């Protein structure tokens, strides 16, 4: 037989017992040519372009799920950062008037995504690392309304990169908005904030939400794939002898990641070809869900720390991320997006359990983000946290990314009325979170200095 029974059964077991899936196929759509100074025309152009580019996305992806027997959990769209697309439509309005246009654009995106059977559409975004344009200011101002009045739209701000440094003014504005978004979605426990991420060095070709956008360097359309399979990796590590050394653990993760990534590439290539486009990026990030057995924290525990947060956690996460990248890079020449390991607290039941019992602090999570992607993700914080403290967290995280030439992000949810230790359920894939302890010390004097932290010097590395 061309394939051994072990190979065939391993593939089937990965899907049926270990939650192996393609986490997302995301169609990037370039909306640059939709611009118009007229609001109605802009919205019509966007709707028309998305319909024509993505009409077959969901049915074709569903066909491939059946053909290969591998579930594709999410089918999504990312678009050109909308601030650029709507710039000419808001050019002659003040910020307040412009916000109405922006909200109309967001509602168009939301409605169109619904018509196409898409659960989330990413790219309600702006690149503000060097400063804010008028259109960026409009976008920023519109965020609380957009995330409370739409359900499918996700957005991001890129507030820093390694060649220009960190825009503290943009961070401050974003931190204020995060609180306003949470307050505007109070009835959903501040869930609106889960649809917004602040990043630095944001890579083009991200398939995952909330950070997905279609890069300025991209073609008309492209398919980006996010693979998954923390459960598969965990079981492979758990099956090793207790005496296996760190190199053997790494080898095991590399081999299994190769297989997972190949499945992602196969599906991505074929889907791209069916949609008449090309495969952009295969994002190697291991993305957990709140199902038990589908957890990144459990992999770290299988490698050997008693619980995520114990000393050694950062090293095990480095071992994991590095092995995933090495195995994945062998499997596809299209590595892109975040490509690390996600540590979203609410979406990873074991990660959240560690927060709940006090084993995992926000400080340790921050340390962990220096060796993985994509930063402090899906962390519920007390609703009373001052915006200056949120800005301090964002600035810390951007410093790690900008200094180390990597993407980092912050997606915090200040739960209105929520106190440290309270449990919050966001529902579905977004999971449950225990509100984490934040430092009570003030960051105000620092963050309100504003301005830009200069780009890092990379010739003297210590």
């Amino acid at each position, binding site marked *: *037989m061309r*394939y051994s*029974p072990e190979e*065939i059964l391993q593939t*089937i077991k990965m899907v049926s017992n270990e939650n192996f899936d393609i986490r997302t196929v995301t169609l990037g759509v370039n909306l640059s040519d939709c611009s118009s100074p007229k609001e109605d025309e802009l919205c019509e152009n966007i709707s028309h372009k998305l319909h024509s580019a993505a009409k077959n996305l969901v049915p074709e992806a569903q066909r491939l799920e059946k053909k290969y*027997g591998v579930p594709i959990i999410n089918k999504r769209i990312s678009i050109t950062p909308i601030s650029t697309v709507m710039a000419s439509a808001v050019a002659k309005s003040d910020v307040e008037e412009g916000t109405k246009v922006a909200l109309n654009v967001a509602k168009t995106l939301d409605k169109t995504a619904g018509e196409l059977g898409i659960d989330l559409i990413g790219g309600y975004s702006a690149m503000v690392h060097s400063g804010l344009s008028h259109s960026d200011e409009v976008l920023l101002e519109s965020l609380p309304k957009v995330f409370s009045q739409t359900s499918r739209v996700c957005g991001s701000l890129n507030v820093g990169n390694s060649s220009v440094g960190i825009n503290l003014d943009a961070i401050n504005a974003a931190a204020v908005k995060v609180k306003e978004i949470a307050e505007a979605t109070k009835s959903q426990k501040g869930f609106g904030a889960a649809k917004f991420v602040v990043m630095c060095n944001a890579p083009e070709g991200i398939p995952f939400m909330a950070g997905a956008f279609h890069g300025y360097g991209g073609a008309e359309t492209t398919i980006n794939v996010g693979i998954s399979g923390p459960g598969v990796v965990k079981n492979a590590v758990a099956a090793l002898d207790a005496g296996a050394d760190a190199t053997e653990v790494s080898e095991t993760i590399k081999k299994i990641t190769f*297989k997972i990534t*190949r499945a992602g*590439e*196969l599906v991505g290539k074929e889907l791209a070809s069916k949609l008449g486009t090309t495969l952009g990026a295969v994002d190697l990030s291991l993305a957990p869900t709140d199902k038990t057995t589908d957890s990144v924290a459990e992999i770290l525990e299988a490698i050997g720390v008693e619980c995520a947060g114990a000393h050694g956690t950062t090293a095990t996460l480095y071992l994991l991320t590095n092995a995933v990248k090495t195995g994945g890079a062998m499997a596809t020449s299209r590595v892109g997006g975040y490509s690390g390991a996600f540590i979203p607290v609410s979406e990873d039941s074991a990660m959240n359990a560690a927060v709940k019992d006090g084993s995992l602090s926000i400080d340790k999570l921050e340390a962990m983000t220096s060796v993985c992607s994509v930063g402090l993700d899906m962390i519920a914080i007390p609703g009373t946290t001052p915006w200056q403290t949120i800005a301090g967290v964002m600035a810390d995280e951007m410093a790690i990314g900008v200094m180390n030439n990597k993407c980092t992000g912050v997606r915090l949810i200040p739960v209105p009325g929520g106190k440290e230790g309270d449990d919050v359920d966001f529902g579905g894939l977004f999971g449950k979170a225990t509100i984490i302890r934040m430092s009570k010390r003030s960051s105000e004097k620092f963050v309100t200095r504003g301005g830009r932290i200069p780009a890092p010097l990379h010739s003297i590395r210590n």
Partner: protein
Amino acid sequence: MAKELAVVTAFGKDRTGLVAGVTRALAESEVNIEDLGQTIMQDMFAMMILVDISRCKCDFETLQKRLAEEGNKLGLQVLIQHKDIFEYMHRV
């Protein structure tokens, strides 16, 4: 006509007529068997069949449903997946 290969996998409690039931369903759909292997794993019957679906009378999804229905009658879980998934995942 170029071959189009897929892998049929059937698992379940061992009993008489399992191979006959699954292969009959394949034959009736004009699906040719290229290779066949079976094993007993932890008291469970597991059969893997490499098939050519290029002359299949129905589309892939209909064949998939047909095999699943036949499996239900026999107390088996029957899957069919395009061979590329195994080729991609297990071969460099």
